[in-house]
């Protein structure tokens, strides 16, 4: 249990609840043939979320400060891999599946453990080409294989 996280979470959920309530007042209040419109469900849920977040806030206030989990998080490796994954996702359509996957896998393997570059090269190459062949060639799915400016 992390009190700081819980406190922030209760604020965020409170704001989300208010936001959903406020936004749902702009939705029309009735549907054709019914007095019950599309606004009532999200409005009610938003209200519940607000109530629950207040309750969470009080629970956090009341709870004693428990010790947080001892182990240190390895943010460096995570950020490296996450950034790589984000770049992979953003440029997926430009560089195509095979090149993107190959680069992403190679980079991540090396982040998790340096060295054994040949093995990393082989596994990432086999995986990216293999999946592409199975999916596009055999199953005839559609996936941008190579960048459009290359073929």
């Amino acid at each position, binding site marked *: 249990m992390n009190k700081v996280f819980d406190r922030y979470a209760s604020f965020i959920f409170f704001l989300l609840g208010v936001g959903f309530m406020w*936004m749902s007042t702009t939705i*029309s209040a009735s549907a054709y043939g019914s007095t019950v419109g599309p606004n009532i*469900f999200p409005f009610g849920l938003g209200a*519940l*979320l607000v109530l629950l977040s207040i309750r969470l806030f009080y629970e956090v206030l009341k709870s004693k400060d428990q010790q947080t989990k001892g182990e240190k998080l390895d*943010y460096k*490796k995570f950020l490296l891999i996450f950034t790589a994954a984000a770049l992979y996702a953003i440029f997926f359509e430009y560089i195509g599946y095979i090149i993107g996957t190959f680069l992403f896998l190679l980079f991540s393997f090396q982040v*998790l453990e340096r060295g054994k570059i040949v093995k990393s090269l082989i596994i990432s190459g086999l995986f990216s080409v293999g999946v592409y062949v199975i999916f596009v060639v055999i199953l*005839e799915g559609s996936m941008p294989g190579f960048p459009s400016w290359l073929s």
Partner: protein
Amino acid sequence: MDTLQYLADGFSTALQWHNLLFAFIGVLIGTAVGVLPGIGPMSGVALLIPITASITGGLGPEAAATSSIILLAGVYYGAMYGGSTTSILLNTPGESSSVVTTLDGYQMARQGRAGPALAIAAIGSFIAGLFALAMLIILAKPLSNVAIMFGPADYFSLMLLGLCAVSGLAGKSITKALIMTIFGLLLATIGMDTVSGVARFTFDIPVLYSGLEFLTVAVGLFALGEVFKTILENDYGGGRIAKIGRILPTKQDMKDSAGPIARGSLLGFFIGILPGAGATLASFFSYITEKKISKKPETFGKGNIAGVAAPESANNAASGGAMIPLLTLGIPGSGTTAILMGALIMYNIQPGPLLFDEHPQVAWGLIASMLIGNLMLLVLNMPLIKVFAKVIATPPKYLIPIIVAISIFGVYAVQVQRFDLLLLLGCGVAGFFLTRNDYPLAPLVLGLVLGPMIENNMRRALTTSNGDFMIFLQKPLSAVFLIIALLWLIVPILMKKRGKQVVINEEG
């Protein structure tokens, strides 16, 4: 006799060669998922939805749905078999429903009886699986006949009951579980309203009109969340694997575990039917029961074979029992069944009382294939157990990036837009931080899946009553469901107040 006829039809579906293949792939991957620590049944099933969707692309809509649900269900119950392997050999449970198995299983392995422990786990799972399926076959039709008489108000209250049950048992804090449920329901409202066609919370962004895709959110929260956890906690060192030795259990072993298997199957099945209580709870309860009725309770925790047989039978029976509310009522009782339901809805097949009438091929095909799948699992887990023990040795540093790549590939193959890839990564980060701080994810997914149905039934009920909310209390069935739902939330709170420990279901 009707049921037998349907079952025969089901077998003719399940025995088509491609469905046999799908069932086999499903249970094979399921066993691997169970064996590999770090991927639970939920993330395994979520990860495979997009892949099955692309494999079955060439089939007709109903056949495609049948084949993919056969595969996905195979992953689900296959994981229940596989989870025992690491518990026994490594003392690390492959998934949460095998936590209790470590107590006696690992001790048995240290005494050189790993083989019989694994074998009993497989045999117990098999018997329990058959039992749960037999009950499913007997109960499916009558239950769906009852459920068909439910009106919208009854349905609304029943689904509310399902949500409350899952939230009440889902984590350390009920408040947090409820917040996640409501949040899931709210996320489900994003997009075009199915009744009136009004766009809600879309901010005129085109990709939001179709709503947040369930698949993307589930894969992100579960699969990527767990991967990020492994990276952040630097948790990819291997352990020492115990030697397996001879596999076949002795006559004495069989005699000792016959009772626990039978009791575990019964108990597991009924716990599995209850919404919110899943395989994890079932395995805990059956272990405690065995310890209580045993003549030598002191041998538990020191390698008593009953301590392996009972929980392993119970968790498999529970996964079979959990299919009952999903198939007959259309209400998933746990995170994994919620994901299965999401998969069925993706194929435009609505689980529920009408499923057995409208899509008998899907329902009975699935049931028949589960019978075949359990048989396959017995074969896979007895002679081939040594092969699977090798799977444990897969270096996680290769596995982790590959899971990320599969997630991205799978989501893109189905959604074909960049927005979903970014949403996927966002959900992965959210999934990690939420679970780390005890916000359970299963209620969120359940809310996301049930959201549109709850809302539609509520609005339908309110339309008939002209906006009067009392309709939910005036209909007797609905009132009963609401009262049970309320009790489900209040009783655990009261028990905690009185200082009793409440067993919670971490698997969801």
